[in-house]
């Protein structure tokens, strides 16, 4: 059983997603339960894989259909992607539980369809994370993207346009990636990552390879919404289905970054002038994104849109960590990937809750909200403080490693430190502004769209994920030393360790 964990991570949500409409037809709740359960099992498998790979100290290789690589497709799970997969599935599980109240009044087809897309999105993301084959990664990328377009389009009237825009730009991004894979295949003759890592060594200075790096930066840059390729992102995050927003904003933007780390540090081993140049360009783009994203976030009235721009900035943090190219920087990037998934997920869960109960997303209408939704608001405060990077929340610790890495990198790093500090302060402006509205401003007299009876401020399916994610931010913060010393330390690429 446990040797099949890698494939189960992908297979379970895939099958559940495809069966969801049928089950929903039988009973309206059944499809939802099926997908939720499958994602829960998938989470269990990810944790199992993480334990296995940490215990054995080696990567787990799973040959599909027992075809030996490089001919066959394989899944390779090392501590890095096992960690990312665990986080991804955790957020997906929270989102799956959270979605129920939104679909209470919809038809069986809508519920079933929603959970099909949701399951497929989880499948695609997990697949991208654990695959050991560059073309397979493209396949999962498309699965994730297509289901993502669907989930964004389900958000309401304006979401269709947002989704269509993302579809156009996202497809271009995926094509860039595919072109890059084509070039790589042409020069190395292999699609297996491990095999490619060996064969690419003599080709690292060829023009074709430089083109590959350029194509990947544009391709992944679009997918992760790296400035200035982020045009699609604010609309998409804003108008996405509120129940799926946590997964879309929390994980979907992060997986391409994971893929970048995998390519640049593991497959290409961060060698050659092209990679160095590429990382530097990405670093500069990231810095612009950090500042611009934060400034744009300050200008927003719509809470979701503010979060979307804040994501543009936070993606920059990850890229900065990656571009630093030292141990601290990469630890910071991966840690921030985990932390930000929790923080942004948590924030989108919060606004989803407000939207569900009051139908309001304008922060000017949040006056005295904490009296009506105390738990959600306090969890929001935790997430907000974490976004600003105040201890002892998780956000501080990833910032600590990023600043440490920047300081180590010398003069270029001082520039990054300045950017990080400025960005933290800009973050503080737009999050404390919301805190001020919620706790200090006079009551805005919101009307309940979905009245809540009883003691709970939201249905338990929504309150529970909000609570878990919020407390998770604190737990992640306090246990960060353990995460780094017991997990991330083994997840570092060999190039950096020596």
């Amino acid at each position, binding site marked *: 059983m446990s040797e099949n964990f890698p494939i189960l991570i992908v297979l379970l949500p895939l099958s559940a997603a495809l069966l969801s409409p049928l089950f929903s037809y039988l009973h309206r709740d059944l499809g939802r339960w099926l997908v939720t359960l499958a994602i829960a099992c998938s989470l269990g498998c990810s944790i199992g894989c993480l334990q296995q790979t940490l215990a054995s100290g080696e990567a787990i290789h799973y040959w599909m259909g027992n075809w030996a690589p490089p001919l066959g497709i394989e899944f390779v799970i090392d501590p890095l992607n096992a960690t990312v997969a665990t986080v991804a599935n955790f957020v997906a599980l929270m989102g799956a539980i959270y979605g129920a109240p939104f679909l209470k009044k919809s038809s069986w087809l809508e519920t079933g369809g929603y959970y099909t897309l949701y399951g497929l999105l989880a499948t695609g993301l997990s697949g991208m994370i654990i695959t050991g084959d560059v073309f397979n990664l493209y396949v999962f990328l498309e699965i994730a993207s297509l289901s993502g377009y669907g989930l964004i389009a389900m958000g309401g009237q304006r979401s269709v346009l947002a989704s269509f825009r993302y579809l156009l730009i996202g497809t271009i991004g995926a094509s860039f990636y595919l072109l890059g894979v084509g070039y790589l295949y042409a020069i190395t003759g292999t699609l297996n990552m491990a095999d490619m890592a060996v064969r690419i060594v003599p080709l690292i200075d060829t023009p074709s390879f430089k083109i590959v790096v350029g194509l990947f930066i544009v391709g992944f840059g679009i997918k992760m919404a790296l400035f200035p390729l982020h045009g699609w992102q604010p609309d998409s995050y804003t108008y996405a289905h509120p129940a799926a927003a946590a997964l879309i904003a929390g994980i979907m933007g992060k997986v391409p970054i994971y893929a970048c780390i995998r390519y640049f540090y593991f497959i290409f081993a961060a060698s050659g002038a092209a990679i160095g140049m590429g990382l530097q360009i990405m670093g500069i783009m990231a810095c612009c994104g950090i500042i611009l994203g934060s400034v744009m976030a300050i200008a927003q009235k719509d809470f979701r849109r503010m979060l979307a721009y804040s994501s543009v900035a936070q993606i920059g943090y990850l890229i900065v960590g990656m571009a630093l190219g030292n141990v601290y920087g990469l*630890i910071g990037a991966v840690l921030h990937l985990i932390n930000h998934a929790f923080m942004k997920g948590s924030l989108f869960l919060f606004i989803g809750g407000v939207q569900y109960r009051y139908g309001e997303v304008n922060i000017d209408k949040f006056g005295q909200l904490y009296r009506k939704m105390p738990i959600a608001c306090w969890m929001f405060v935790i997430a907000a403080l974490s976004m600003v990077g105040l201890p002892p929340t998780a956000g501080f610790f990833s910032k*600590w490693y990023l600043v440490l890495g920047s300081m180590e990198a010398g003069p270029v790093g001082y520039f990054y430190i300045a950017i990080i500090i400025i960005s933290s302060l800009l973050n*503080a402006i737009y999050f404390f502004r919301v805190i001020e509205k919620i706790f*200090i401003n006079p009551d805005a007299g919101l009307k309940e769209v979905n009245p809540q009876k009883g003691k709970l401020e939201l249905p338990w399916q929504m309150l529970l994920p909000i609570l878990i994610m919020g407390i998770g931010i604190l737990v992640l913060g*306090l246990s960060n030393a*353990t995460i780094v010393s017991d997990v991330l330390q083994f997840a570092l690429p060999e190039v950096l360790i020596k």
Partner: protein
Amino acid sequence: MTETVIVSIRPFLAVGISLLAAFLIMLSDKANPNVREAWTLLAAFGKFAIIASMMPFVWQGGVYEYTLFNIVEGIGFTLRTDACGMLFAGLSSFLWILTSFYSIGYMRGHHEKNQTGYFAAFAVCMSAAMGIAMAGNLVTLFIFFEILTVATYPLVAHKRNEEATFSGRKYLIYTLTSGQLFLAGIVFIYLFTGTTEFNAGGIAGLGEAAPVWVLQIMFFMLCLGGMIKAGMMPFHGWLVSAMVAPTPVSALLHAVAVVKAGAFVVLRIVGYVYGPQLLLEIHAADWLAYLAAFTIVTSSLIAMKQDNLKRRLAFSTVGQLSYVVLGTCILAPYSLVGAMFHIVAHAVMKITLFFCAGAIYVTTHKENISDMKGIGKQMPFTMTAFTIASLGIAGMPFIVGLISKFHIAAGALQMDEPIYVVVLIISALLSLSYLMPVSFNAFFKENEKGDFQKYGEARKDMLIPLCTTAVLAIILGIAPNFGLNLFDLAKTAAESITQGMIGGGW
């Protein structure tokens, strides 16, 4: 000097107890206010008991230390109670008891809204102040420092009107900015020396770690966090605006915990990170001392113009805290003793003054000094306490303020810097000239409007704390080691920092 170290979780209990109280206070929001206040008082007494139980061992030069877990890779979440930390911890935990009683009286007498949030935030602030006092390394210190920043925000913005909101924003802008620079400085120290542990006399090897100009810039960045919290000019803007907060907040947080935490951070960085030896070589502390001297004189001048009593006291705080920074940055053994003891001295005196200002406000709703003519006849105890504390601030013998000032002046002479003695004398005269008129007004002027007849003395739960602190100011002025042996703690700490180094041929 070798220290005996006992591994004990007690420092964490001292920090944790008020954090726990904050939760309990939040949970008893809808319960009887007496239940809620019981938590505050229990935590206040409990905290003081824990601190007091650690005192005897610390007097003998011992240290309690405990590392709860690793806060980041390679750095422990460590609290240790050295003499310097215990000085601050003992002081704030004791004053918290008095302030708790006073707060309850003030908040009830004034029928404030949102009392639950107020008391909870207050308790968190005390935890953070305690953590800052006992932090064993820079990262632990930073964590409590930022918790203090965030937890003070709701107190500053407590009134929830436009002015309070604005002050809250201003406060955040100042403190968060400095906090970020502080963080960068900490990272620098960690990366270049491989440690962030406080070490009396400075972290070994820091001097060779980087060029002098880098060390100077980093010293500035590290100190900036403390300077802004301590309200040093030109960064004092937030402190004055923050006076919109309820008076007990001003009393404890703006005279004891928050601003003192700032001065304490400067002390830690000078004495325990850089060390006087290194600072004398790189001349980084000089400009800080100049700035402090400038602040001392300027703030006194500004204070004279203020008619609002709390604002006048706020500017007085700005000046008095700079005494601490000045004493620290003179780097002489005597001035370090003076700086540390001034933390105690100023706390006792200034808390009395704020208590008095609050008592007057709650009883008569007067905020301006010009309205307080003849009030001494109605509130004799309050105004007597006020006068005692005022004289203490000015440096009257037999009141605690003189002892610390005397030591700072002696330190200045040790280092051959008589200019600072001049500054101290000018400042003493200036503080007389801005505080004495208040007492004069109260006792010797006639109440023109005659509207004080209907008021009596302040409520008992406010009067008793303020009389206690006034009496304490006199007792400590005569016997500085009364109670918690705080003066000896200051001496022990100063000795460990200077390690026998004596400046100026003394």
